[in-house]
């Protein structure tokens, strides 16, 4: 699938934003005004930048308003409705939190739950697609949720530490745990993906054309000699070497370096805030690589019609 920057940025940032929202909602925030403002603005900002960037992905954004209409059947519509609801509820909670110095627990918990469900619905936009066997698994929501939690925790820990709030350390410890869990889930996702080829999913060129029952099928001539929308969007091919390199970046920046930095921050109380900030930035960079691969390595059944992505084992686990 085409790794569109807007969608990569959207899923990464909104995950972290909603992650932070749910943590704030359940009362894990600090007390200082600076912290509160920064945390709320960042949570909101990440979510809203993410959402805006997803709107930028639309070809006719003027009609985006209709996207709230089909929540009964469409995960994308649900995501839209839920993100607005979440932003609304969290907004109300934040008003009280910022201006009245009150943490309305029920509202916060509602916002937290909504944020989690929003991230879940984002993930379901992908996980529902039988056409993309890599994505069509419960592991996809698990990955999105786990990364949302890890990202949120890291951001929260960083903020607490920067503003000298209490609880930075335990939150950082939780972040460590979440990071490990998220990457374990992601590893499981990757391992499954490595086995999940179009052919294995029954969407190889033979089934796509139905000609498999005559013999071995090979694409001979494409319908058009220049690439078209479908090929650009659905038959994106990433080089094996490039994928491996990016996977190393994802793991290095997304987990190895952050783990190291967070451990340092937790156990060597020097420059904690800076270390956590660095870890966060590194994590986000890793996440962007992870998301890029999430799209770039995923194969859509349509690729089969073009004879692309038919070989087994192209997607390397590590």
């Amino acid at each position: 699938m085409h790794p569109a920057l807007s969608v990569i940025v959207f899923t990464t940032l909104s995950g972290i934003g909603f992650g932070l929202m749910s943590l704030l909602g359940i009362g894990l925030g600090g007390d200082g005004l600076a912290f509160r403002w920064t945390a709320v603005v960042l949570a909101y900002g990440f979510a809203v930048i993410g959402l805006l960037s997803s709107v930028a992905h639309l070809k006719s954004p003027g009609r985006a308003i209709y996207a709230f209409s089909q929540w009964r059947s469409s995960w994308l519509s649900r995501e839209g409705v839920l993100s607005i609801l979440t932003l609304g509820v969290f907004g109300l909670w934040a008003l009280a939190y910022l201006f009245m110095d009150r943490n309305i627990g029920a509202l916060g918990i509602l916002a937290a739950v909504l944020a989690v469900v929003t991230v879940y619905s984002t993930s379901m936009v992908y996980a529902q697609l039988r056409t993309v066997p890599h994505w069509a698994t419960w592991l996809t929501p698990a990955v999105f949720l786990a990364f949302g939690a890890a990202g949120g925790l890291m951001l929260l820990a960083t903020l607490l530490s920067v503003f000298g709030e209490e609880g930075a350390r335990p939150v950082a410890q939780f972040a460590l745990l979440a990071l490990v869990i998220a990457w374990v889930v992601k590893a499981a996702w990757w391992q499954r993906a490595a086995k999940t080829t179009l052919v294995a999913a029954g969407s190889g060129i033979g089934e796509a054309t139905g000609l498999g029952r005559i013999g071995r099928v090979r694409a001979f001539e494409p319908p058009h000699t220049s690439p078209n929308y479908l090929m650009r969007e659905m038959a994106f091919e990433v080089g094996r070497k490039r994928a491996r390199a990016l996977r190393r970046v994802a793991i290095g920046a997304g987990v190895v370096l952050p783990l190291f930095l967070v451990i340092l921050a937790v156990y060597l109380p020097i420059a904690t805030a800076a270390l956590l900030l660095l870890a966060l930035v590194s994590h986000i960079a890793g996440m962007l690589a992870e998301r890029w691969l999430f799209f770039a390595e995923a194969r859509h059944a349509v690729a089969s019609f073009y004879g692309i992505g038919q070989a087994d084992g192209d997607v390397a686990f590590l």
Partner: protein
Amino acid sequence: MTTLPQTTNRKLGLVIDLDVCVGCHACAVACKEWNTGAYGAPLSDMDAYGAEPSGTWLNRVHSYEVKPEDKPAQIVHFPRSCLHCEDAPCVTVCPTGASYKRSEDGIVLVNEDRCMGCGLCAWACPYGAREMDMDAGVMKKCTLCVDRIYNDHIPQEDRVPSCVRTCPANARHFGDFADPDSAVSRMVAERGGYDLMPEQGTRPVNKYLQPRPKVDAMPAGEGCGKHDAHAPATPGGLLGWLDRALAALD
């Protein structure tokens, strides 16, 4: 109308006969031509005369090389357009309600006035039947020529999709699959019409007919040797045989 109708009164669609499709692209261009002037925004072409010409097409013709076990490889031409699935995932994923399936005849359409161009329906379609129009910013797909098949301005015999009307090899047939006696239903029954990627669970309405097995000998094979009965294996033999043949003329 993102939910699918429970049932449709009719199931209109196409049968594509891969046994006679010569891969001429006539259907693809006729489709482009009709739909450029008809339903919705024109089908645009970007970089039309430049380095990467890339336009919106609702029907594209592929060619495949198929190698049977012990026979030489063969080429199969394969047109691909929307199959008007009964369980159309493109419809249910659509957040705006732009995509819908008509309850009257099962045609899957995009209401371009509502489409925000998110592209999700194209992701949901296993068959590559949806293409984003880069100029108009809306999703396009085969309309089954809904503005031809009921059109009073068109003579009755021409109220068929443009691609069907034009196919020089008569490889495309249009009809109602809900009616077991329709020509298309019978064709599918007789020739074992099949679904593309059935495991996707989309229950396509359109059906494909397999190329007939390539034969090496005539069906009436035993008759072939018949002439050996008077086989004049040598020139002399031929001339003797000629005598009899000429005598028969008198």
